[in-house]
């Protein structure tokens, strides 16, 4: 009979606090991940929005091609009208 009571006491005073401590640690870790994930989600959404202007690179490419073509024409003309060194 006494051993039964000792077992109950051990279960109540040792096992239960250990179980609660471990589960509390797991819960705290899970809770700490949530804000980080939310910040990552906000950052990636902002990064995706910042890249909306990447499509304008096509316009930039066209402008660069036209500019280089103009420079080439200008240089070709200079090559014709100016003497070499």
């Amino acid at each position, binding site marked *: *009979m006494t051993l*039964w*009571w000792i*077992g*109950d006491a051990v*279960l*109540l005073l040792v*096992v*239960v606090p250990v*179980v*609660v401590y471990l*589960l*509390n640690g*797991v*819960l705290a870790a*899970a*809770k700490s*991940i*949530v804000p980080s*994930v*939310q910040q*990552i*989600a906000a950052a*990636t*959404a902002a*990064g*995706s929005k910042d*890249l*909306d202007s*990447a*499509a304008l*690179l*096509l316009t*930039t*490419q066209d402008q*660069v*091609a036209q*500019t*280089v073509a*103009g*420079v*080439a*024409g*200008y*240089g*070709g*003309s*200079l*090559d*014709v*009208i*100016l*003497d*070499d*060194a």
Partner: protein
Amino acid sequence: MTGAMAAVVGIAAPGVALIVIVVLIVLALVFYLVSVIVQLRAITAGLDEVIGSVGEILAKTTPVEAIVTGINEQLDAGVDLLEGLLVQKAGLADAVGLVEGLYPGAAAAGFRNFPESTTTKAPRIGEVYTKGTLTLARLGREAPIARGNPAGFPLRNVEGGSLAARLLYPELRQQRPEALPRSPVIGTGAPEQYERRDDIGKPRKRLPARSQ
């Protein structure tokens, strides 16, 4: 009878306490595990948002490399053209000097397609070219050309710059008559297309020496 009941209760009490403790443990397990599940669901929802945004970023940045590569190739071609033209027309030394005059310190970097330009000593353009040449070079761009000119810091005269340029040409063109055609338009769209001279790259023709 009462004694027997007391004995039964005495024997069953530790078992009942054990059951109560086990129930407490199970309740704690349920509470914490449900809380963890809720948090894990929140994490999953957040990661879903992240994955969606990352997918958008990937989709938006996929063509960037090809476009930027194309822009760089075109700019490289332009740089090659301008460097080659400058060196061809001015010569390597004067070209380095001109660049050094426009951007002090740039001569140390040299030209990309002319590795020997890094070791070429840049002449002082203000001493090499005449005032008229420098005036032409300064026109329209306010370039700090020949910054080391002993005559002073050469800045474009905004009010008189146009007159100074016109004075480089013969007087006939400036005032009498007034309506001479302007300088020819150059470029691929020019109305007058000139053929390339045959003597380009060859020694200049020299007039015969005067007979005394």
